[in-house]
């Protein structure tokens, strides 16, 4: 049972290592294609830059998401709650591609538009999970904590955040999976990542590249989901 979450990650690693050797296989599968294996950049380099994009956006997203979520749920922070609601409502409606595309005219091609979209979109699930989780801390528990003489800071760190941790971590997991997908779309704005072979394949009419990029992107998403899922579960199990 403990190994199950690692399975997608292992599969992803295996695919990553096996793919460079699979040229002949793809040649057989796609006989019309002149260059059956994507070689402009190594898959490992693409994976690393993809992972970098995800991490570089996830960390600020977690900090802002949790920070905004905490700020929005403090008493007397109606203003913050309205901002948070507006941001969540707006971003749920606007697809990440649109944000990447809109960012391009403003900041130019490359990694930046993807990073902007990634931070925006990874922040939202964390923010939503944080406000939701903090709102479900029972009022009796909060009343008892205040009545015991905890300062607002002690209440936050000793009671509210520990109780809200499992849903917040679940939100982080959603954010990470979303970030993997959004990072792939970043290829259209010129970011180098696992989406790059897909775009290159579509542009050059090379279905083999498309499959290679798509398989790796999909497996990476499952790997991230599985690994973070393994992190989330023990935490929730420790607080029955």
């Amino acid at each position, binding site marked *: 049972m403990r190994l199950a979450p690692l399975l997608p990650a292992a599969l992803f690693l295996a695919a990553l290592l096996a793919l460079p050797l699979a040229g002949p296989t793809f040649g057989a599968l796609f006989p019309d294609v002149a260059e059956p294996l994507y070689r402009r950049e190594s898959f490992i380099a693409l994976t690393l830059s993809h992972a970098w994009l995800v991490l570089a956006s996830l960390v600020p997203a977690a900090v802002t998401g949790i920070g905004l979520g905490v700020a929005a749920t403090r008493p007397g922070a*109606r203003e913050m709650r309205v901002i948070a609601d507006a941001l969540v409502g707006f971003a749920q409606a606007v697809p990440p591609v*649109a944000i990447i595309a809109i960012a391009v005219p403003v900041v130019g091609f490359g990694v930046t538009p993807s990073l902007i979209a990634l931070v925006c979109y990874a922040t939202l699930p964390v923010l939503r999970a944080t406000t939701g989780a903090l709102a479900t801390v029972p009022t009796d528990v909060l009343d008892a904590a205040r009545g015991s003489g905890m300062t607002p800071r002690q209440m936050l760190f000793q009671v509210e955040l520990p109780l809200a941790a499992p849903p917040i971590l679940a939100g982080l997991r959603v954010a990470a999976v979303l970030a993997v997908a959004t990072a792939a779309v970043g290829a259209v704005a010129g970011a180098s990542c696992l989406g790059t072979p897909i775009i290159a394949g579509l542009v050059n009419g090379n*279905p083999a590249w498309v499959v290679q990029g798509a398989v790796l992107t999909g497996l990476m998403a499952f790997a991230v989901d599985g690994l973070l899922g393994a992190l989330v579960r023990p935490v929730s199990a420790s607080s029955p």
Partner: protein
Amino acid sequence: MLVAVLAPLLLGFAVLAPNRIVPPRGIAVGDVHVWGFLAPAALAALAAAMLPGRMAAIACGVALCGLLGGLDDVAGRLTASLSAARLGPAAGSWIACGALLLAARLALGRAGTGAAGRAAAAAGFVVAIAAMLALGLLGDLGLVREATARGPELRAALAGHLELVAAALLPALAAGAAAGAFAFTMRRIGGAVMGLLAALQVIPAMALFALLIEPLAALGRAVPLLREAGLRGIGAAPAVIGVFLYLLLPIAAATRAALGAAPAAAVDAARGLGFAPGQVLRRVRLPLGAPVFLGGLRTATVQAVGLVTLGALVGAGGFGVLMFQGLGQFAPDLILLGALPVAALALVLDAALRAVEDGLAQ
């Protein structure tokens, strides 16, 4: 509100591209004399910080109209003689637009305006923009020029986008509702089905669309009849099927939740009063679950609008085509022409379905 005033001053006001090839150059507020528009706009923005609730929102709208009008004035003067030239807002003006919209939303929130009031405010703003367009006060902006030049394309994109959304959403509605009902009655196997649908969500959309191309192409080759019917690897098929698959989870989950939304006590009481199972479903479960189901439908619709955009990558139509063309040619106005309607469409559908939901809940 200071942000809205300072950003255009510090981070650049407008960007002028004489044509597609020459790199665009920035234009500062001081370079052009459009105080006739900008001074009132800045005043309105500053006033918004001091005015109460709704007045502040209106002031934000006025400031936004002034900013756009100023941009248009500059555009009219600088690009009048050059038909290929395009003038758009620079980063500073973009930030100002965003800050003004957010401030307006905040002001409405502070005034305690509900969803209907917000919709009215948005409609008022749209009317104001439309009026400016009709009066020719925005006609020289790059985006508007581009839109005028591509009118037919834009209409085709809208039709295509809506068609693709419907093509994915309607079957997903049927299949998702069936799956949700199944999951509600057969908890064990149903749970596994829901798990499968949830796992599908993990696959990035771009990867799923891309992976669908080859099997569909092979299917088309093998069955000529299907190819005749329009099933090819590249085209609408992978996008529609992909979006369909993504929509199954929100709809199935909402259906299951909707069927279970009736309090156990109410269902128990209905049974005790002698309702037949069908009557319990029709008179208790469905009325009580309808808002929950509609919530799922709203989520699915908004998702569909966004996901279909990505479908343009694999050859489906819609606004995504304009957007990716724009990215390919580095034509900012074209990108916006694809991206802004998608955002607007999603927000409008979201608001409309939310209004229906609120109506049902009362």
